[in-house]
């Protein structure tokens, strides 16, 4: 166990006019600290490519995850995949990244553009050994990983971007490296880096990708906890217990809720300084309490956070509004979705009688439902989530 973790984020676009993507990414979490990621690019495009790449990535990831040798994986694929009528071959190209304890990576590459390892903001030239299996040349690498290493790998759609339109020969690996070295900052998430590169490819393609394009990033980062206090405890006698547990936690602290922030202020012996700036017309302004990283209103703000969380990863744009806005909901979204690897919810179950008015969309059930939905969503994004009720 160390305090590092692996952040994996990938995005794809389909070839212009295609309904299905011929690239497929499969992620298997063997444990919190061991992951297998396979990016497969099926021959051609459309349904055939999609089936090939899905089969390839699923077979490889399952077999590698179960400790099978690479030779048997490749044999199995060769024996399993349907043969293309036109081309008389059956394969898809692939890149496999396997991380071990967040400290070591095994990289296996077959015919996809060569993986780029960004270390300290620069492309790092890693050693490769060549193996031939069934006449296929496969490159293997075993390498130690550092904090804030980015492993960026793509399907060949990325390097064909712009061929014949904005550029004569597409952009080559060197240009992609240059782009990444210029754009990527150490605090970017894997998802952000993938989206940045994919957006650039789409731009070069003039919005009409000539091939399925997929970018996958694996980032090694330090674990970060964010703690969120939401609502007063049901039994007022538990306020001190709830507060002391909450503030004892390592990491950032968010207090969400009007009464809740008053209680937190009393516990800390600090005033709650509310601001009157409506940075988003629908979200109540934030407040400040010394010793708390962020203080916001409760249910309305959290409902918006849930909306952001649900659309996170669905829309491929990095430039979501909440990335740059400073209202309470955007700030919570950044902390929970981007910064945190571990989220601890401290949920108070007191019922505010004034909120039980059927005309108001903020009653108790809605509140509890919010927490449940948000924590499920955060879990599905690969975060460790703990919810404690008081």
């Amino acid at each position, binding site marked *: 166990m160390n305090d590092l973790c692996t952040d994996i984020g990938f995005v794809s676009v389909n070839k212009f006019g295609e309904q299905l993507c011929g690239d497929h990414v499969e992620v298997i979490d063997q444990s919190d600290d061991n992951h297998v990621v396979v990016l497969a690019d099926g021959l051609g495009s459309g349904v055939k490519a999609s089936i090939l790449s899905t089969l390839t990535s699923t077979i490889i990831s399952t077999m590698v995850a179960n400790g099978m040798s690479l030779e048997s994986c490749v044999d199995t694929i060769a024996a399993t995949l349907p043969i293309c009528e036109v081309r008389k071959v059956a394969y898809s190209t692939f890149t496999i990244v396997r991380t071990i304890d967040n400290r070591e990576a095994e990289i296996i590459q077959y015919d996809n553009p060569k993986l780029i390892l960004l270390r300290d903001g620069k492309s790092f030239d890693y050693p490769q050994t060549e193996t031939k299996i069934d006449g296929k040349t496969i490159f293997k690498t075993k390498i130690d990983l550092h904090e804030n290493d980015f492993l960026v790998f793509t399907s060949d759609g990325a390097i064909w971007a712009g061929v014949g339109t904005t550029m004569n020969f597409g952009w080559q690996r060197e240009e992609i490296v240059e782009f990444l070295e210029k754009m990527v900052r150490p605090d970017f998430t894997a998802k952000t880096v993938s989206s940045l590169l994919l957006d650039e490819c789409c731009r070069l393609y003039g919005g009409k990708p000539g091939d399925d394009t997929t970018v996958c990033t694996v980032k090694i980062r330090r674990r970060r906890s964010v703690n969120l206090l939401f609502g007063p405890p049901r039994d007022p006698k538990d306020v001190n217990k709830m507060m002391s547990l909450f503030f004892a936690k390592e990491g950032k602290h968010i207090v969400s809720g009007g009464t809740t922030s008053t209680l937190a202020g009393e516990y800390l012996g600090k005033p709650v300084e*509310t601001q*009157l700036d409506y940075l988003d*017309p629908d979200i*109540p302004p934030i407040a400040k309490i010394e010793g708390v990283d962020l203080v916001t209103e409760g249910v309305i703000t959290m409902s918006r956070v849930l909306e952001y969380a649900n659309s996170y990863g669905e829309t491929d744009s990095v430039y979501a509004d909440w990335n740059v806005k400073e209202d309470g909901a955007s700030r919570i979204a950044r902390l929970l979705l981007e910064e945190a690897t571990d989220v601890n919810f401290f949920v108070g179950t007191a019922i505010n009688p004034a909120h039980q008015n059927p005309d*108001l969309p903020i009653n108790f059930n809605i509140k509890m439902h919010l927490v449940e939905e948000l924590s499920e969503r955060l879990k599905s994004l690969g975060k460790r989530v703990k919810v404690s009720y008081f």
Partner: protein
Amino acid sequence: MKVTVCIGSSCHLKGSRAVVERLQQLVAEHDLKDRVELSGKFCMGNCRNGVSVTVDDELFSVSPETVDDFFKQNVLAKL
């Protein structure tokens, strides 16, 4: 004089923002920036009768429709 508007959930839904913005306007129009301090507060424990506004320590219920009258009667008149 200190005028505090509740911006908690319940009052927010009943129009805190409109009340705050109108009060800011009125204060500016009457050139009272030096004499009236506008501030916000999360939840004054009077959620049923929002939007809650206090003038110094006296509590009022204001709505976006009544904010002009409120300002005349309880802010201007008392300065």
